């Protein structure tokens, strides 16, 4: 195979060719390095490229595979991770100037797990500062959307979305506090899974909001997502909230049937007035595709969904602020303007407001579970509009603007963070915006705790029946 074609393989296909020794891991890493150096100057998706580490790991993988020691389907496959996960001996910045020289001594558990699976770490991916959604200034360069470089690749796992869509890694990890895996998957035309909270260890991950954060895969296919999740999921004594339940075989779960699956369209999501008609139409067609594959479709209600953004925002800001207290006092100038404002807000949120948000969270959780008592999977748009233009203007200029930032489109993903359930975004078609005729959009699916495999199965069947995942961005 021509080495320039290697990056365009799925992670699963590349893994199979590596296991058969048709492609060596060294050849795969070199092909990705060449593409990163040629393409990434247009996207700024990587903060750090681990050239030497990757080549050394690839040589080791090559020897192990030649000796018949296959660790997993990702053995020898180049992956990249959001710069929110600690990597021993490798710069870990959280996308911030505050941590511009931070080199951890230990790997995050998800990194150890990827290495144990034989995956090759290509590098650390760009992100919104400290995984917040509002940052404008990117110390390591502004990440850009491969489908239109004037547009946002999605926050906060921006580099994970851009690099995966542009074939600069075979699969990637992001982290999702309020939608930060699903939004880049939406904007970049990918599959992103926010796993059930507790399925993936948070140990060694720079925290945004402890009760909402979780790492998960951003990939080009549901199968690649399944392989990536398989590698990172499982119990961890360093994170007491990880489940002790044995990890299922997610790749095997892809092959189950979706005939008879009950899909509940969340009416407060699909029919919300803040959802653009072209997004609604595209998502409706995707739900129709699932129906044609044998699923049944009904409507369900989550009445508090449109208000989720504000409730989510209070949790995130209050939980994030204490980690930044000292830095806000000693090096405030090193923060992005908007991120500094958000963390300062978290420091002064009145207690009774936070208490009310905690109670509202419980009601949202009850509403999500009530909807899931009636159906197997919830379906709704992932975002209300196409990828927005990159914002270059920091600041909040009115209370109305502040209110708008905590309403509407940001409510579509946050309910499932607050309910701690799994949720997935899968590219389901294209929409247009001024100057951009072809921007991806995604169908969002959510399920009961630990139904991650079922969500991947639905996305896999959807991809088998549709052409969206084989489209390539013009980069």
């Amino acid at each position, binding site marked *: 195979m021509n080495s320039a074609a290697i990056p365009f393989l799925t992670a699963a296909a590349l893994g199979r060719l590596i296991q058969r020794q048709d492609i060596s891991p060294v050849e795969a890493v070199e092909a990705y390095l060449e593409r990163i150096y040629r393409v990434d100057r247009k996207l700024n998706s990587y903060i750090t490229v681990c050239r030497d580490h990757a080549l050394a790991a690839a040589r080791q993988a090559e020897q192990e595979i030649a000796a018949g020691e296959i660790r997993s389907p990702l053995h020898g496959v180049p992956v990249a991770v959001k710069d929110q996960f600690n990597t021993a001996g490798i710069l870990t910045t959280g996308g911030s100037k505050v941590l511009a020289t931070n080199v951890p001594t230990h790997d995050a558990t998800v990194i150890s797990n990827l290495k144990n699976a034989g995956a090759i770490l290509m590098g650390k991916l760009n992100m919104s500062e400290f995984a917040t959604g509002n940052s404008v200034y990117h110390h390591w360069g502004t990440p850009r959307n491969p489908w239109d470089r004037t547009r946002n690749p999605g926050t906060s796992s921006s580099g994970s979305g851009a690099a995966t869509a542009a074939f600069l890694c075979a699969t990637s990890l992001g982290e999702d506090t309020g939608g930060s895996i699903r939004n880049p998957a939406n904007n970049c035309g990918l599959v992103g899974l926010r796993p059930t909270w507790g399925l993936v260890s948070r140990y060694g991950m720079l925290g945004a909001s402890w009760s909402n954060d979780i790492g998960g895969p951003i990939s080009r296919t549901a199968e690649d997502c399944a392989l990536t999740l398989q590698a990172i999921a499982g119990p961890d004594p360093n994170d007491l909230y990880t489940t002790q339940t044995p990890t299922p075989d997610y790749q095997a779960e892809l092959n189950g049937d979706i005939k008879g699956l009950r899909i509940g369209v969340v009416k407060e999501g699909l029919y919300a007035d803040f959802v653009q008609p072209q997004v609604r139409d595209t998502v409706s067609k995707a739900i129709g595709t699932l129906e044609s594959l044998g699923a049944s479709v009904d409507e369900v209600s989550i009445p508090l969904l449109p208000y989720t953004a504000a409730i989510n925002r209070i949790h995130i800001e209050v939980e994030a602020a204490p980690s930044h207290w000292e830095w806000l006092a000693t090096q405030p100038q090193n923060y992005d303007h908007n991120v500094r404002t958000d963390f300062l807000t978290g420091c002064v949120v009145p207690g009774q*407001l936070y208490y009310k948000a905690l109670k509202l969270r419980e009601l949202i959780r009850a509403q999500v579970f009530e909807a899931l008592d009636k159906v197997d999977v919830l379906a709704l748009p992932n975002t209300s509009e196409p990828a927005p233009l990159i914002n270059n203007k920091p600041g909040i200029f009115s209370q109305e603007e502040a209110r708008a930032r905590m309403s509407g489109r940001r409510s579509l993903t946050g309910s499932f963070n607050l309910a701690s359930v799994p949720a997935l975004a899968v590219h389901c078609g294209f929409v247009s915006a001024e100057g951009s005729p072809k921007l991806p959009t995604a169908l969002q699916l959510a399920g009961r705790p630990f139904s991650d495999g079922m969500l991947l199965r639905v996305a896999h069947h959807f991809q088998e029946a549709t052409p969206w995942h084989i489209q390539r961005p013009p980069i």
Partner: protein
Amino acid sequence: MADLTKDEVRSLGKAAGLDLQEPHLTEVTYNINALRELLDDLNPPGLDEVEPLPIIHPYHQIGQ
């Protein structure tokens, strides 16, 4: 509920050990007032009865 003034928000900052300066003082005031406004309007049935349960939902299988 009346909006908080910048002086009141500055006092909240002081209580938290932070000296809020412009332009952040104005923007934090916008944020806090927007959050108060949004949550003041939100009083769904059952809110008074519900307890803020732990983050871990009942389905979670910790320790099994």
